[in-house]
C-alpha cells in the first residue's frame, strides 16, 4: 500500500512553537479554557476513558456468555453489567464521540471561524459531561442499575431497587451537555461562517453535524422530561406511567424512543460526515453528488423524528401505528443508501490510496451496510416479531454503532491526528490495527445474527446449551476486537512524542483546516479567510501547491 505523504516542509519541519497546545501552560489553562480545540482534547481524553470502561464491561459480558450457565457472576450482576455497558457506551461514549471531539475541534476551523459561537457554554458542556460521567461511575460503584439502558417502566419505577435515580440524573445531565454541544454547532454554522463560505461550500462534515445537532437540540429534552417523570414516580409516587394508578407504561416508551431513535442518528450522522471527508481526501476527488449527500443528512435528521415506534411494534401500540411507523422506517432508510452509493462512486476515477483512515472508512461502508440492512429486517413488522428482543438486534446495533460509528470515529481520529497533535501516527501498525479490528468485529458480532435468528433472547445471563458454539465465537472475536482497540490507544500515545512531524497538510486535503498550521494557533486564523474556492476543490489545491508553506508559530 502506498502513501501519499507529500510534505514539502517536512525536511525542515518542526512542530510550530506557538500553537493551541503550547499557548498557555498549567492545568488551569486547560480547565478554564474557552478554546474549542482544547475542549475537544479534554473531551477526547474523557471519552476514551469511558470507552474503556464500557469496553471492560463488554469484556465481562462476553466472558460470562462463554458458557451457558451463569457461572462467572450472578444474573443480577450480569444485568447490572450490560445496563452499565449500554449506558456508558451510548450516553458517555458514542453520542459525544465524534461531535464533541472532532466536531468541536474542526467545525469552527472548517468554516473559517475563530471559535464556536459560545465558548463558555462549550466548556460548560464538558463539565456537564464530566458530572454525568462521575455520577454514572458513582451509581455503578454504589451498586449499579439493572434496568437495561432503556429503563422500561414499570421495571424502572416500581420493581428495581437499584440506583435508577442516580443514573437517570447522570443521563439527564449528560443530555444537557449534548444539547449545548448541538446548540453551539447550529449557531456557529449559521452565524460564524467566514466571508465566501456559503452553505454549499461547507464540507459535508459540517452538514452532517448540522443535522445531528438538530436532533440533539429537539430530541434530548424529551428524554430529560421522561427521566424527571420516572424519578417523580419512584420518589413521590405520581401516576403517569404506573398501570395500577391508571397510567400507561407504553407512554414511557413513546417518550423514551422519541429521543432514543433520533439518538441513533445523532450517533451515526457525525460518523457519516467523517467518512465523506476521508473518502474524498484519499481518492482525491470531490464527493460524488455533494448536494445529495448534504441533503440526505438533513433528510435523515427530519425523518428520524417520525419512526420511533418501530422499537415498540410488539409492545402494544395500535396496529395502525405499526403500519405507519413501519412505512416511515422504510423511508428513513433510503437516505443512508444514497450516501453509501455516493461514497462508492466518489472512488470512481479517483486516485486512491489506502492509509489507515481510508481502511477504517471501507470498514465503515461494509459494516454499516450490513447493520443498516438488518435494521430494515427489524423495521419490517412481520419479521420484527421473530427478531425483536433477540441477539439479532444486538448484532444490528453493534454493526451500525461499533462497525459504523466506532470505525468512523477511529477513521477520523487517525485522519485528523496530524492536525490535532502536529504529528503522524505510525502508518504500518495502524493499518494492521484497522485490519485486526475489522476481523475481530466480524468474529464478534456476525455470529450474533445467527443467534438472533435462532431465537436467543438478549439480556440473558444464561442460555440454552445449543447456543454455546456461536457464543464462543463471539467471545473469541471480542478478544481480538479488544486488541484492535488497545493498539491505537498505545501507538497514538506513543506518536505524541515520537511520531513523524506532520506539517500543515500531510494528506493534501482541501478543507480549510488543512490550510493552517498543525497544531493550529489558538485563534485558528491570524486573519479571517475569505473563501473563494469550491468545496473539495482539488484543482485549486494543485494550483496552491507551488507556494511555499510557512509557519506562524
Amino acid at each position, binding site marked *: 500500500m*502506498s502513501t501519499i505523504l507529500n510534505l514539502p516542509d517536512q525536511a525542515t519541519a518542526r512542530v510550530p512553537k506557538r500553537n493551541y497546545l503550547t499557548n498557555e501552560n498549567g492545568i488551569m489553562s486547560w480547565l478554564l479554557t474557552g478554546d474549542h480545540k482544547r475542549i475537544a482534547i479534554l473531551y477526547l481524553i474523557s471519552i476514551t476513558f469511558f470507552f474503556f470502561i464500557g469496553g471492560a464491561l463488554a469484556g465481562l459480558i462476553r466472558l460470562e456468555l462463554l458458557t451457558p450457565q451463569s457461572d462467572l457472576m450472578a*444474573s*443480577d450482576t450480569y*444485568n447490572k453489567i450490560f445496563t452499565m455497558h449500554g449506558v456508558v457506551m451510548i450516553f458517555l461514549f458514542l453520542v459525544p464521540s465524534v461531535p464533541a471531539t472532532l466536531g468541536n475541534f474542526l467545525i469552527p476551523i472548517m468554516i473559517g471561524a475563530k471559535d464556536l459561537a459560545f465558548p463558555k457554554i462549550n466548556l460548560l458542556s464538558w463539565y456537564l459531561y464530566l458530572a454525568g460521567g462521575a455520577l454514572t461511575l458513582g451509581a455503578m460503584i454504589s451498586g449499579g442499575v*439493572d434496568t437495561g439502558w432503556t429503563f*422500561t417502566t*414499570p*421495571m424502572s419505577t416500581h420493581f428495581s431497587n437499584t440506583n435508577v435515580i442516580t443514573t437517570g440524573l447522570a443521563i439527564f445531565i449528560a443530555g444537557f451537555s449534548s444539547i449545548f454541544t448541538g446548540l453551539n454547532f447550529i449557531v456557529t454554522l449559521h452565524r460564524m461562517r467566514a466571508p465566501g463560505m456559503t452553505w454549499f461550500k461547507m464540507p459535508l462534515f459540517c452538514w452532517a453535524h448540522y443535522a445531528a445537532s438538530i436532533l440533539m437540540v429537539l430530541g434530548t429534552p424529551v428524554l430529560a422530561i421522561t427521566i424527571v417523570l420516572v424519578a417523580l414516580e419512584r420518589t413521590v409516587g405520581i401516576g403517569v406511567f404506573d*398501570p*395500577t394508578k391508571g397510567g400507561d*407504561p407504553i407512554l414511557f416508551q413513546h417518550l423514551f424512543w422519541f429521543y432514543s431513535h433520533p439518538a441513533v442518528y445523532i450517533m451515526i450522522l457525525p460518523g457519516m460526515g467523517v467518512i465523506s471527508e476521508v473518502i474524498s481526501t484519499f*481518492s*482525491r*476527488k*470531490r464527493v*460524488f*453528488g455533494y448536494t445529495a449527500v448534504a441533503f440526505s443528512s438533513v433528510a435523515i435528521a427530519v425523518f428520524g423524528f417520525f419512526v420511533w415506534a418501530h422499537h415498540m411494534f*410488539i409492545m*402494544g401500540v395500535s396496529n395502525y401505528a*405499526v403500519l405507519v411507523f*413501519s412505512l416511515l422506517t*422504510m423511508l428513513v*432508510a*433510503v437516505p443512508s443508501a444514497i450516501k*453509501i452509493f*455516493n461514497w*462508492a*462512486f466518489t*472512488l*470512481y*476515477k*479517483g486516485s*486512491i490510496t*489506502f492509509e489507515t483512515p481510508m481502511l477504517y472508512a*471501507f470498514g465503515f*461502508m461494509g459494516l454499516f*451496510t*450490513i447493520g443498516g*440492512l*438488518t435494521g*430494515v*429486517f427489524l423495521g*419490517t*413488522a*412481520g*419479521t*420484527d*416479531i*421473530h427478531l*425483536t*428482543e*433477540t441477539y439479532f438486534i444486538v448484532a444490528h446495533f453493534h454493526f451500525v454503532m461499533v462497525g459504523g460509528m466506532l470505525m468512523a470515529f477511529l477513521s477520523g481520529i487517525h485522519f485528523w491526528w496530524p492536525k490535532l497533535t502536529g504529528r503522524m501516527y505510525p502508518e504500518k501498525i495502524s493499518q494492521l490495527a484497522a485490519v485486526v479490528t475489522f476481523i475481530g468485529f466480524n468474529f464478534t458480532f456476525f455470529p450474533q445474527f445467527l443467534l438472533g*435468528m435462532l*431465537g436467543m433472547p438478549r*439480556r*440473558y445471563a*444464561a*442460555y*440454552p446449551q445449543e447456543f454455546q*458454539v456461536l457464543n464462543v465465537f463471539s467471545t473469541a472475536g471480542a478478544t481480538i476486537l479488544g486488541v484492535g482497540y488497545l493498539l491505537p490507544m498505545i501507538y497514538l500515545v506513543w506518536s505524541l512524542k515520537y511520531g513523524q512531524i506532520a506539517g500543515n497538510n500531510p494528506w493534501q486535503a482541501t478543507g480549510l483546516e488543512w490550510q493552517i498550521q498543525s497544531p493550529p494557533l489558538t485563534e485558528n486564523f491570524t486573519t479571517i479567510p475569505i473563501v473563494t474556492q469550491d468545496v473539495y476543490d482539488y484543482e485549486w489545491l494543485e494550483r496552491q501547491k507551488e507556494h511555499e508553506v510557512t509557519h506562524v508559530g
Partner: protein
Amino acid sequence: MGLSPVIWQFLVKWMVSFAIIPPEASRIAPQVDALLVFMTLVSLVGLTLVGLLVTAFSILYRRDRNPVPTQIEGSTLLEATWTIIPLGLFLIMFVWGSVLYFRIYTPPPNAMNIYVVGKQWMWKAEHPGGQHEINSLHIPIDKPIQLTLISQDVFHSFSIPAFRVKREAIPGRYTTVWFEATTPGTYHLFCTQYCGTAHSAMIGDIVVQTPEDYKMWLAGSTSGVSLAQNGERLFSSLSCGACHNGQPDARGPSLANVYGSKLTLTTGSPVLVDEAYLRQAILNPSAHITQGYAPIMPTYQGQISEEGLISLVEYIKNLNSNYRVQQTLNTTELLPEQPDKGAAKGAAMQGVAKP
C-alpha cells in the same frame, strides 16, 4: 491439526448441529422464513453491489494506476436510480411484512383460547379446562391456539422462536397472539422482554403433541375444576350475583350472552365486549357504563388476582351457553375434537368465541 482438542470438539459439534434458523414448527413459520430469505437475498445483492463497487474502484483507480483523478460533479440519473430502487425494494418488504404482521396477530375465529399470566419470573398458563402449567405449555398440533396474555408486574414477552411468534405481556392489559403448531416436539419458550433478576430463567417448554397425546395430557393434569367453574365460585364468593342475577329487576345487567355482543354505553358509543372489556368492566366499572344502568358497581381493583380475573372472564364468556349444564360436566371431557360432536356445548367449554 495443531488445533487443541477442545476447539476441535467444538468445531465438530458445530458442524454437526449447525443451523441458522430454528425449526419451522408452525403454519406461519415458513411464511416468515420466506420473507426472511427474500430480505436476506436482497441484502446480499445490495451488500455485494456495494462491495464490488468499492473493490473494483479501489483496484482500478488506485494511485499507482490512476495518478490523476477526474473530478466529477455527480449524476442526477444515478442519484435517482439509487433512491428509487432501494425505496422500491424496501416498500416491497414493508407490504409483505405488514401482511405477515396482521396474519400473525389476527387470530382466526375458531381458535382455542389459553390464558397466560407472566410474572417475575415465571409463566403461568391457564387452560380453559382448569389445567395449570408453569413454564410450560401443552398444545395439540393442527389446531389454532390463541393466547391471551397479561402480566402481573412488569413487561414480559412470550416468545416461541420455532413458531416465529412473540407477544409482549403487558401489565394491566390483555394482548393476544395465535399460532397453529404443525410438528410435535418440544420447543423453547423464552421471556424475551427484560424483566429483572431472573429474566434469563423465565424460560420453559412448548410441548406440541398429537391430538391423542394431548388428550391424555389433558386428562392427566386436570385439577377437576375448570376455569369457568372456578370463575363461578369467585362470582358467588364476591357476591356479584347480588346485582347480576339475571332477573329483570336486577340492579346490574344480565351477563348471559354479553360476551361478543355490542353494547351501547351511556356516552352513546358502542363497544364490543371482548376479554379486555370484561376485565375492564370488573376493575374500572365506571369507565364505561352500559346504557340504562347506574354507575353503582364497585371496583374490584386490588381484590382479585390476574388469575381470578381470568376465571371470572372465562366464566362470563361461558354464560353464552347453558353454563349450568357445563358445570356438571367433568373437565376431562373437554377434549379437543369435541366441537365436532356437540358443537355449541363443546365450543363454549373451550372458550371458543363464536362457532
